[in-house]
C-alpha cells in the first residue's frame, strides 16, 4: 500500500488534531460540559444515525432519516443546561464515562483549514453500584476546523456499532 505522499496531511496537524480530540474527550469524561461546548463550532452539526440490521448487500444499514442525536449547538446547549439542573435524573448519580479515542486518521477536505478526522471511540460507562458497565463502540467522522491558533469541531458524525442498543438511555455525549 503506497501512501499518497502528495496529499498527505502534515504530521504536526495530525498530532494537533489528535490532541484536540483527546482534550475534548477529557472535558466530557471530567464532566466539564461548559468547557466541552467551547470545543464546538457555532455551526456544528452533531449527528448519530439509527442503525438497522440489514443484509450484506442492502443500500444502507445506517438509517437515512432516523437519528439518535441530531443536534445543533443550540440543542446541545439545552442538553448541557439540563445537566446543570438538579433534575436531570438520568445522570443522578452521574455516569462515569471514559472515551477511548483511537485510530485517529486525518485527511484533507475540499475546504481549506478543515480536516476530516476519522477515529474509533470505545466508551465505557458505569453507573451507581452496577458492576456491569455499558460499552459502546463507535466510528466517528469529525470535521475539525482551524480557528485562530487552535481548532474547533465543525461536525461530528458518529455511528454506533450496534443495532439494538444495550443501554436504557443515552444521557451521555459521544
Amino acid at each position, binding site marked *: 500500500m503506497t501512501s499518497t505522499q502528495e496529499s498527505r496531511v502534515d504530521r504536526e496537524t495530525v498530532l494537533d488534531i489528535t490532541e484536540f480530540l483527546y482534550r475534548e474527550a477529557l472535558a466530557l469524561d471530567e464532566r466539564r460540559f461548559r468547557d466541552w461546548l467551547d470545543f464546538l463550532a457555532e455551526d456544528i452539526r452533531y449527528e448519530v444515525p439509527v442503525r438497522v440490521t440489514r443484509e450484506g448487500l442492502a443500500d444502507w444499514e445506517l438509517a437515512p432519516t432516523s437519528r439518535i442525536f441530531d443536534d445543533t449547538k443550540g440543542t446541545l446547549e439545552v442538553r448541557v443546561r439540563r445537566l446543570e*439542573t438538579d433534575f436531570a435524573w438520568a445522570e443522578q448519580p452521574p455516569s462515569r464515562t471514559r472515551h477511548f479515542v483511537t485510530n485517529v486518521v486525518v485527511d484533507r477536505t475540499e475546504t481549506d483549514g478543515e480536516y476530516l478526522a476519522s477515529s474509533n471511540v470505545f466508551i465505557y460507562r458505569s453507573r451507581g453500584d452496577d458492576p456491569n458497565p455499558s460499552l459502546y463502540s463507535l466510528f466517528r467522522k469529525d470535521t475539525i476546523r482551524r480557528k485562530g491558533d487552535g481548532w474547533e469541531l465543525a461536525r461530528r458524525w458518529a455511528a454506533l456499532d450496534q443495532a439494538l442498543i444495550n443501554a436504557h*438511555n443515552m444521557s451521555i455525549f459521544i
Partner: protein
Amino acid sequence: MTTWAVDSGIESSLREIREGIKEGRFPARAFNDQQIFDLEQQRLFPRTWCFLAHESEIPSPGDYVTRYIGNNNIIVARDEQGQIHANLNMCRHRGNVMCKSEMGNASHFRCSYHGWTYKNSGELIGVPYMKEGYEGRLKRKDWGLVNVRIDTYAGLVFGCLDPRTPSLEEYLGGFQFYLDLYLKQGEAGSEVHGPPDHWVADTDWKICAENFAGDGYHTPVAHQFGFNLGYFPSSGSTHSQGWAASIPGRGHGIGLGHSPNFPPFGGFPEELTAEMKRTLSPAQIEVFSKVRTAVGTVFPNLSFLMQPFSLVPGETGVRFVTMRLYHPVGPGRMEMYSWCLVPRGASQEYKDEAYKAYTLAFGQAGTFEQDDFENWTKVTRSAKSTMVKNIDFPYIMGMGSERDPDFPGPGHVVRPYVNDTNFRNLWGRWADYLVGDVEP
C-alpha cells in the same frame, strides 16, 4: 394487603390481586417477577392483538420487517400483490432463521442450511433433492412457514396467535376515537418518519404501559427540568387539569392534558388543523382541540404520545407524535421500539421539525425519555426486593369519580388529568388475562 404466594397458589393470588385493583391497590411485586412474566407469556400475549408494524414501514411489494410476539420472531412482509402476511421466521425443515435482518426486500426466502425456499407469503416452493431424498413422501403444501393471523387499523398492523380472539375492531372497542389523533393527522393519515429507535432496558414493560396510559402525575417532577427551563408548555399549578379516558373491560386508556391558556390545536400547522376538521368527527374535533398532551396505551403494550414542544420558552412550538412498543424479554427486562409518526401529507419541513422535537425529547437520547427510563429501571429494581412481597401501591386517585357528563368521547372519562382510573382499568384487564378469564 395482597398475599403473594411464591410457589403454589399463584392462581389464588391473582384472584386476590384482581379484587384488590377494584379497591385501589396493586402489588409492587407484579412489576418484576418470574412467575408473572411466565404467565404473561402463556396467557396474555398469545391471546391479545399484538402490534407488529406500521404499514408505512413496508410500503412496496417484497418489503418486510421482522418483529416479535413473545419470543417468536415474525416476518411481516408485503407480497407481490401488495397484501401483508405475517409468518414465523423459521424454516420448517430444521428450524433455521429465514430472514436474518430487521428490514429488507425479497420476493422469496431461501434457507441457508439446506436450501428450502419459500415465497414471501410463506408458501414452500423449493426443496433440494426432492426426488432422491424424499422419494415422494414430502408434500410441499404441508410445510409452509407457520402463519400468523393479522388485522389492521389505520395503518397499524397487529398479529394474534389465538384464532378465537375477536376482531381487532371489537378488541379496540371504541378506542379508535382517540387513536385517530395520532393516526389520522391530515387526510393522508400518518406515517413513520423512519425506522424505530430500538434499545434494551432493565424495565418491566408494565411500568411503561401504565405511565403512557395517562400518568400526568409524574410530569412536573420526573420532567422537572423541562418545567424549570420552560420547555414544557404546562405549569405546576394547572397541570392537573384534563381528563382520563378508558375503555372499560378492554384495558385501553388515554390521558388528555389540558392547559387553560393553550390555543386550540396549538402546535399543529394550520393546513393540518383544517384537514383534520374535515375528516374527523365533530366529537373528535371538540375533544382534540382542547388537548395539549395526549398519552395513551393500547392494551397491552403499544403506546402513543402527542405533545407540543418548543425550545423557546413560552412558545407553542411544534407537535410531535411518538408510537412505542414495549417488548418484554424477561421479568423486568424489555426491548423498546420508538417511532416518530408524522402526517404523511405535511411538508417535509414540518415533518423534519416534528422529528427534531421528537429526537430531542424522546428516543434513547431524548431528554424526557432519559428521565422516564431512569425512574422505570429503578422501580423495576425495587419490585424484585423480597420485602415488597406483601406490599401494595395505592391506586386510589379518582376512585369514586363519576363520568364527565359533558365529554363527547367514548369510554369511561373522568377528571382530572391526574388520576389512577385508567390504571385500574388497565390492571383489571391484565388480571382477567392472567387469571385466565378472558373468553377468547
